[in-house]
């Protein structure tokens, strides 16, 4: 049943992907100034502009370009960067691991903070620890990541003359240095997500803990840990997982600033530069990747429901 559901969902995802790619294909071309104009901005030779446009295939009708691109993308060919002339797939292959690692760490950190703290706050509702945790959550939601990042790299430099490593440390060159380098930006990204997840965990758990079957569990004399974790949390966690799924695009979006501040060569910074340079194949490739990731993550979230709650069947 689950397999049939997943196949059905995948088929439904195809039009979503097509619509998303059409939007992604269109929007960059609506920004004033095109790639060729930027590439030849320094020379301003009208004849060269037309020639280069023709050479890059940008002079053809919009729909022809789109159909050709989507056809090549389906075969795994995302074209070449207009600036570096390197295949987009190759460029993405270098950068994706950095962003994926950052997003993974950030998500793990968010979960590690949010779930235990949310459970604690719910289990000790209206206690001092609950107030403290809720206040911290609001703070976490309110503090912009870039501001926190700026403080975390500037203040240690002023106080102790220390700052995180400049330049990206490859894992194979220095595994520990690499993890340490990723950890600080991951914490910053994770904190904001953790705040939202924590509040939801607390709220959902409070609702579940008021259910009759929980009262029954208490009446049976079960230990608090068993009641809260086994009976409560398991039933409260589904909306949290849903939120986690929707947080992923936010984390990916948030990495643009964080990657810039920490000098990490990830996909987000690549996309940012590509937008500035109107590097259409790169913009399209990165966005296709992000859209596909979001679709797949949501699919995974749906599949996870059935694992977490045996009552859910597809």
């Amino acid at each position, binding site marked *: 049943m689950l397999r049939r559901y997943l196949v059905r969902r995948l088929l439904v995802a195809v039009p979503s992907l097509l619509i998303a790619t059409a939007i992604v294909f269109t929007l960059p071309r609506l*920004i*004033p*100034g*095109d790639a060729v*104009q*930027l*590439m*030849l*901005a*320094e*020379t*301003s030779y009208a004849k*060269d*502009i037309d*020639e280069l446009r023709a050479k890059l295939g940008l002079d053809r009708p919009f729909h022809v370009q789109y159909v050709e691109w989507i056809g090549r993308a389906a075969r795994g060919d995302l074209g070449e960067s207009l*600036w*570096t*002339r*390197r295949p987009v797939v190759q*460029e993405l292959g*270098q*950068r994706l691991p950095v962003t994926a690692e950052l997003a993974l760490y950030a998500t793990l950190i968010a979960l590690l903070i949010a779930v235990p703290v949310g459970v604690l706050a719910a289990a000790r509702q209206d206690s001092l620890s609950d107030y403290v945790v809720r206040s911290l959550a609001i703070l976490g939601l309110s503090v912009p990541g870039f501001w926190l*990042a*700026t403080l975390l*790299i*500037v203040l*240690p*430099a*002023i106080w102790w*003359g*220390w*700052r995180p490593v*400049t*330049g*990206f440390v490859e894992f194979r060159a220095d595994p520990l240095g690499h993890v340490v380098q990723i950890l600080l930006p991951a914490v910053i990204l994770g904190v904001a997500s953790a705040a939202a997840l924590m509040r939801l965990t607390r709220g959902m758990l409070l609702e579940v803990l008021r259910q009759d079957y929980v009262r029954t569990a208490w009446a049976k004399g079960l230990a608090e840990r068993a009641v809260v974790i086994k009976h409560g949390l398991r039933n409260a966690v589904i909306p949290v997982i849903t939120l986690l799924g929707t947080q992923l695009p936010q984390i990916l979006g948030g990495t643009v600033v964080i990657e*810039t*501040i*920490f*000098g990490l*060569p990830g996909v987000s*910074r*690549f996309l940012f*530069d590509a937008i500035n*340079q*109107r590097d259409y194949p790169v913009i399209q490739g990165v966005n296709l990747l992000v859209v596909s990731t979001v679709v797949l993550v949501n699919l995974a979230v749906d599949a996870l429901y059935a694992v977490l709650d045996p009552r859910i069947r597809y």
Partner: protein
Amino acid sequence: MPLSRRDLLALSGGALAASTLRPSVARAQTPKPPDAGARRGGTLSLRTWDPPHFDPFQTISYKTHIALSFTHSRLLKHKAGPSVVPGTFVIEGDLAESWSQPSETTYVFKLRKGVRWHHKPPVNGRELTADDVVYSVNHFLTVKGNANAYMLKSVEKVEATDKYTVKFTLKEPFVWFLDMLANPLAVAIVAREVVEKYGDLKKHEAVVGTGPWMLDAYRPNVGLSFVRNPGYVLAGLPYIDRVEMTVDEDNASRISAFLAGKYDLGWEFPGTINRTDWVQIKDTLKQKRPNLKTVEYPSAVMSHLSMRTDGKPFNDVRVRQAMSLAIDRKAIIEAVFEGVGVLNPPVPAALREWSIPIDKLGDGARYYRYDPTEAKRLLAAAGYPNGFPATMCFTTYGSTILVDSMQLVQKYLKDVGIDAKLDTKEYGAYISTCFYGKFDSMTYGPQTGFLEPDNFLFGQYYPDELKNQSHINDPVVADMLVRQRRTADVAKRREIIVDIQRHLARQQYYVQMPSGVYIGVWEGALKNYAPSFGYDYGGRLMAAWLER
């Protein structure tokens, strides 16, 4: 670039040649003796910018040219080091061991023997010959999309007369020819095999030169590593083994990295720190990095207001003079340069050998005052008692300083009745239109910080030149511009350039804005280094060493 009298005295003995002695005089650079106390080794750390690509003939981007200044040689270069005053550009040989000028339009360069390409494919350390220079110059002049090709447009032909001799024949006398060759924006000498192998030079694998360092690694968005070229033609140089350049796009990150001692030069171009940042961190730096060295010198980057002088209302000199009088330049210095800046005549004050102080501009000096009352009077006399509407083309270049100064200019113009509506364009659109004079009314923006006056003058004032933004067609100026290009005698040429500036001060074809003053900053352990203008980071560091 000519030598000043002080330079000539300092260089007595003729060890070093300048560019503008009499024709037919042979110039030579004696082999440089090892610097006293110089040490080999160490790693220098710098902040850099991610190059859009690595083809020097396809971009004017400083990001590319700074990177290639470490790896590529030119025929000539600018002398560097503590003895060079920032803003002066003494020419010395790079690949050229000596050169002569048999006639006004002929230059002959003798190449150093034993120059070898980096040990990288496809050249694998073969010897550089005159054919490589000829190929590079022809490629520079003919390849599509080279915005710098104009620098050598005086060249009629270039030929290799033997394995180590290159002869240039010019179409007409052009006394700035050697300055153009020495400019890091002009011909980086490249190998034909590399161009043929890669199609162009955009990929980092194509970074193969004969310069003091070799590109060891390029990590997009992360940085570049250069390693000492053991086969560099000047024995013993460079002294520094590795140069690590980090792409750092966030100012807070740069500040913290500098405070923590991660960068050996100021993080802004060209090895400086912006005054706004400097004011905030200088006290902390005194404690954290007490050995830092600093030197201040004016920037050659100058913004100006250009206008369509080929039509109303800007074809009336009184209108242009009124616009200049309407601008409070000192207030702009206070507001955007933390109170430290210089006023610029048509040749920026930074080019100290060629620029003249405002008070020496003669009659035209008065138009650099702030006098809105006189501005209104002139406007009324020109038939615009209530001013007039206008548009001002602009792009931000991502600079808050530029935006601030533009807003002040707009406000000052409005105060005298000139209502300049802002026409903000995206960078690419701006460069391809307004920067090259394609606008209806006015444009405001910075100009490239050239290293000699000809680019500021001929390029911007000669009829039909690409960068003649104000569409000037003034026969008096045109005549003087051509004459200075043909005057080999430095003193006489300087007189002409002074006359040009005086004439232009009266005409106000462009309204020049003040420039900031750079704070060049470097680690005290870096010896035999001094900051200057231009993209030639590699040239300035070639004979520097580290003591730490």
